[in-house]
Each structure stands twice: as structure tokens, then as C-alpha cells.
């Protein structure tokens, strides 16, 4: 599907994809709660609608009805601006991710850089929220978040460099096209590919503040981190942004390493993209409900002492591979 005028194309595709992503995000919360329920010997949401399917709607309605509280000492403008901005940053990254052949909002020639940059940009609204709340817990959470995001951007970008070198392009569509026919970068070249995939996945978890790297939120230590003072839908927007971010990470990881919409034989199509990315998405939930969280200094130690050297080595190995082949 495409329109000749890039403006109209961007508007229509953007509207469709953003809404699909939001619905998937809403239902991913339902799925996660069911999944967690099964892991914890309980049924999960089961009252609202069949199998609790209307639970996301009920949650959204509940959040909208809640009283919107702005602390007296908070910086009103920044405090109100931060939650929509996090969602904006997360959704912007979606613009350059192709979810199927030709199904893309804007096929930028620096697509991968744009997606990662938008993902890292969430640190600004988060810091904004932490500062504007004027609460110590929020401030500590925001400081942790800033430190974590900035540190993990480096190995994240290094691991994303591996498919960029292999495909010889920054355009995500080109990267996917280079993998068509089963030549997934996670499998080929053997070794660096799968390691880069693992590195990208783990760093994205840290970037999206998911367990075991969710120290900025850390609700047992910092009450709720940056979202401590937020109520109602503003708090909901933070949650939405977190899940959106996680979803987009699984999309990007699929396009970079798992061949995007490449299916067995000639059966390429959007369905394969959906299967792969949602499997990754579920994997993130699985990790979340089985691990505890690291400490802030341990998190930094993992990044600087292990992930960063690993990323550098992987980039060098890949460059060597491309040079030799």
C-alpha cells in the first residue's frame, strides 16, 4: 500500500500503524497479565469480557476516571508535558520500521539511526518528569534512568552496527531485503550474528527499563521511580510508552536480525513479521516474570565491563568477515 504523495502516505500509514501498535500494546498488557498469572498459579484477568479480553479497555477507562493530581511543589508545565512526550518519542521510532514489504511510514535512508535515536530520546521526558515532580524518589529514578540509557546506548548502537555492516546500508528495508531467503543475520555469519542479536536484545531491555534492568522504576526501592507522583492517565501514558518501547524494540530486533517478513520458502509476508516480533515480545515478558533486578552499580558494570568490549569485538569481527568474503 502506498500513495504517490509522501505527505498523504505518511499521514495515512502513520495513523494506521500507530493505532495498530497502540491496540497491540493494550492487548500485550492483557497477554502479559495472563502470562504472569499462569506463571504464578493464578488465572490472571478473567472477569471483564470473555477470558478477560476487555480488561485493557476497563483499565483505560479506570485510568481516565482517576483524579489528576499535580503536586503543589511540582513544575506544572514540565510535569504535564513529560508523559505525552514519552509516548511521542516511542511512537516516532515506529515511523521508520518496516512491518511488511512496503508497509512503512517513511523509508528513511538513515532509518536505523533514527529508530535508535528516538528510543534514546525518551531519557529527556523521563528526566523532565523526575525533575518536575520535585520528589526525591522521582529524582533518584530519573538520575538512574539517565545514567542507564546513556550507558546502554553505546553497546546498543555497536550491536546494531553488525547488521548495518553486513547489509551495507542504514535503511532498514535494505537490511531486511539483504536477509531474504533465510540468510538471517542472527544465524549468518555464525557467531557474531547471534552474539550481536543477544547483545541488542539485552541492551534494548535496559533501554526500555525492563526487568532485570528496571532500576529506574524499582518500585521496591524508589516507590515507583519517575512515575511516583503521576496519577490517572498520565501514569498510564508512562506505562503505555514503556510497552510501546518494548514492542518497537521487538520489531526492530526482528528486522535487524531475524529477517523481518522473511518466511520459509517464498511465503514472505507481514504474518511472519508479526509471529517473530510477538514471540520476542513474549520472551521479554518471560524474562520479566522470572528474574529479579540488578543493582544500579552492577548494571553499569555489566555495560562498561562486558557489553561494550563485546560490542567492539563483534563490530571488528563482522568487518573482518565482510572484508574476507
Amino acid at each position, binding site marked *: 500500500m502506498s500513495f504517490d504523495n509522501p505527505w498523504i502516505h505518511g499521514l495515512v500509514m502513520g495513523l494506521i500503524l500507530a493505532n495498530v501498535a497502540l491496540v497491540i500494546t493494550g492487548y500485550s498488557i492483557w497477554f502479559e497479565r495472563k502470562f504472569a498469572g499462569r506463571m504464578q498459579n493464578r488465572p490472571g484477568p478473567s472477569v471483564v469480557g470473555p477470558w478477560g479480553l476487555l480488561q485493557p479497555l476497563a483499565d483505560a477507562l479506570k485510568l481516565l476516571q482517576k483524579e489528576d493530581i499535580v503536586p503543589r511543589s511540582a513544575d506544572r508545565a514540565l510535569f504535564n508535558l513529560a508523559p505525552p512526550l514519552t509516548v511521542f518519542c516511542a511512537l516516532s521510532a515506529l515511523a521508520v520500521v518496516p512491518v511488511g514489504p512496503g508497509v512503512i511510514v517513511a523509508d528513511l535512508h538513515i532509518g536505523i539511526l533514527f529508530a535508535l535515536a528516538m528510543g534514546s530520546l525518551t531519557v529527556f521526558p523521563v528526566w523532565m518528569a523526575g525533575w518536575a515532580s520535585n520528589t526525591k524518589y522521582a529524582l533518584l529514578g530519573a538520575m538512574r534512568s539517565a545514567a542507564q540509557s546513556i550507558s546502554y546506548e553505546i553497546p546498543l548502537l555497536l550491536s546494531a552496527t553488525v547488521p548495518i555492516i553486513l547489509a551495507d546500508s542504514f535503511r532498514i528495508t535494505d537490511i531486511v531485503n539483504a536477509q531474504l531467503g533465510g540468510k538471517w543475520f542472527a544465524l549468518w555469519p555464525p557467531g557474531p550474528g547471534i552474539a550481536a542479536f543477544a547483545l541488542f536484545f539485552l541492551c534494548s531491555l535496559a533501554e526500555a527499563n525492563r*526487568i532485570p534492568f528496571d532500576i529506574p522504576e*524499582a518500585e521496591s526501592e524508589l516507590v515507583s521511580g519517575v512515575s511516583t507522583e503521576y496519577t490517572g492517565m498520565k501514569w498510564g501514558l508512562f506505562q503505555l510508552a514503556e510497552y510501546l518501547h518494548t514492542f518497537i524494540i521487538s520489531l526492530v530486533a526482528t528486522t535487524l536480525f531475524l529477517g523481518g517478513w522473511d518466511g520459509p520458502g517464498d511465503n514472505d509476508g507481514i504474518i511472519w513479521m508479526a509471529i517473530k516480533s510477538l514471540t520476542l515480545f513474549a520472551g521479554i515478558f518471560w524474562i*520479566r*516474570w522470572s*528474574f*529479579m533486578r540488578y543493582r544500579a552499580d552492577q548494571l553499569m558494570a555489566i555495560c562498561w*565491563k562486558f557489553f561494550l568490549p563485546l560490542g567492539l569485538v563483534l563490530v571488528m569481527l563482522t568487518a573482518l568477515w565482510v572484508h574476507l568474503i
Partner: protein
Amino acid sequence: MSLHATPHPKDTVKWTTVGGVRVPVHLLIPNLPDPFMDIEDYEPDADLMVLNMGPQHPSTHGVLRVKLVLDGEVCVKVTPYLGYLHRGVEKLCEKLSYVQITPIVDKNDYVSPMMNELAINMAFEKLIGAEVPRRARYIRTICAEIQRLGSHLLWLGTFGLDMGGAIGGGGSIFMHTFRERELLLDLFEDLTGCRFHYNTHTVGGNRHDIPAGWAAKATQVLAVISKRCIEYEDFVRGNKVFQARTVGVGIIDPVLAIDLGISGPVLRASGVDVDLRRDQPYAAYDEIAVNVATDPGGDCFSRYVVRVDEMRESIRIATELLAGVPEGPICSLKPVKLPGAVKAKHGQGVYSSIESPRGELGTFVVGNTVRRQSAIPYRCKIRSPSMHLLQLLPYICPGNNISDIIVTLGSLDPIMGEVDR
């Protein structure tokens, strides 16, 4: 790097004797932080932040308030504040008769109510001079061990929450331990009619006899939990993130711990082999051997190891006792019709203590010599182990960051109802 720390090996520990107690050498800390340090002495030009943690905080286990002075995220000084759950139980004890006090003290350590009842009734029996029949002593011991198991299960769950958060891996272990605790509460419901505040111990014995089939059911439940303990071990002990968060965190010097009056699993996790069940047998513990679990690590991981070992030991003791409960009466006194029926004859203070899941839980009670009030204690003081545990915070927290303080606090397992009373 602490990231891949491995638990302290048991066999390479060097021991020394301090004050007649055998303690591991590597746990002795030469320079302890000063809890009354003037913050100006720390570093006059440092940018310090005061963080009030609690009384409303998800991980302070109730309503503990801790004032932290932070340098960045590293703690410089810790001041705990108590009293947010002070209900005046000791004052109530001066207004109620001996048989009326039991349901009140149930609410002290609300995680293990059986222990409170046992502790206070043992003191009353000592004051009054009442004997406890052998069958009642067996029932008391079985209840105490099942309660210890339940209390440690709850601790394991909440410890997971402290580390992994309610919406994460910690929540999973929490849900699993609560599933097992539910089975134990069902057992107590069958025995006493109540799930939580039992009021089953009384002066001179117990109120409720074991119902038909209860022993078999209890044995079966304990066998189930014994199997599930292996699941927890798989889930938690080998978990690298769990080890990274607990090994070497919150190391407690055993000499300091003894000085502070700390007992129970926390002291045993610092390598001190002390257990009132074995050293000063009460109830039916003189008829069964108690293997005391110790670990020389002194850190949060050791406290986990000791508690899990104690869970297994409790299952063993309870199962063995259930097989041989003697026949006979369950109360040496006549069933109490009036609250004034149990009277003290002298005004001396007596003390008796038990090993609760948190340490030495004792009761000091003074009888009233005024004849009209001889059914009411003159003074009743409950020596709560949790209060001493919290006293440890100013000594072990400085130098750690907030995450470690939460884990350390969780590993101590204080119950605020018992601290404040």
C-alpha cells in the same frame, strides 16, 4: 566484581573464639560506623540529601520510618524511627486478666501468631506455677514448627518482592510461597477455627485438641511443602541475579550482633551456633533432637540459606512429632469460665523465652500482689527480637546504596507489629 560473586564456601572458614562464642574470622569488622555520627563530621562540603523512607513505602515491611542521609545514592547515616504501629499492648496487658491477654498478643508478630501465644502463656505458667500436660506440649511444638515454616515462607516471598519488585520475578516467588502458606493456614483453621489469630494457647495448656484425621492431613501437607522447597531452591538459589544481589551484601559482624541482642536466623547466618530450642528446651523440644542450621557467610545469601534449612528442619520436626502425639489431657487447669479464674500468688518478675522465627521472643511478667487484682499482671513486657534487628540498621547500612539497604532490611525480616507492640 560483585556481579559474579559466589557464596562463601563453608569448609574454608577460619574460626576464632570471642567471649566464649565461636565466630568466623572473616566476618569481624574492625571499624564500625558510628550511629550517632554528626553529619557535619562526614565531609563538610558534601552535597547530602535526606531521604525519608517510610512510613509509607512499599519495602519497609509495614510502617518503619528510616531517615537516610545520602551522598549521591550511597547512604551515609541511617536513623530508624519506630512507634508508628504502637498500640500499647503492654498497657492493655495491665488491664486484662491472664486468660484474656492471649488474643491480644496474637497481633504482635502478625506473621507468626502462634509464637506470641506460646511465649506469653509460658511466662504466665511460670508465674502461676501451672504444669502443661505432655499432649499439650506436643501440640504446642507442632504448631510452633508449622508456624515457623509459614513465617519463613512469607519471608521468602517478601524477600523476593524486595529484590524483584511486585511486578517481576519477585512477584512470582511471592505467589508460590503464598500458595504453600495457604495450606498451612488451612491446617490451623482445622485445628483452631481461625486462620490467623488463633487464641488456642491458654494458661496450662491448649484450648483445641487435634481433630480426627488432622495429623494425617498435616503430614501430607508438610510432605507437599517439602517437595516445593526444592522448587524454590531451583528458582532462587542458583539464580545469578539473586546471587549478585545477596552475596556479600549486608554482612553482619557476629560479635556486634550478639552485643546488640540479635538472635535467631540472623545470628545463625553469621556463624553463631545458638538456638533456644536446643540450648534451653521448652515445650516438647527436650524430646526431639533439633539440628541447628548455621552458615558462616554473614550476608543476605546466608540468611536465605539458613532460613530455607530451617524450613526443612521444621518440616522434619513437625512430621516426627505428629507421628507420636501422646494421649492425655490438653490442659492442666479446669476450662476457664471466668477471666479471674487464673491467679498469680506472688509479685515477683519471671521471664521465659522461646525461639521465634525472628529470634528470642521473651516475656517478662510481674504478678500483682493486690488480692483483688491477682488475675491481672502488674507489668508485662514483651522482649521482641525484631526491635533488636532494626537496631542493626545504623551499623550495617552506611556505605551501601538504597537497593542494598532494601535487601538488607528485607533479609532481617522485622515485623513492625512486634517492634512497636
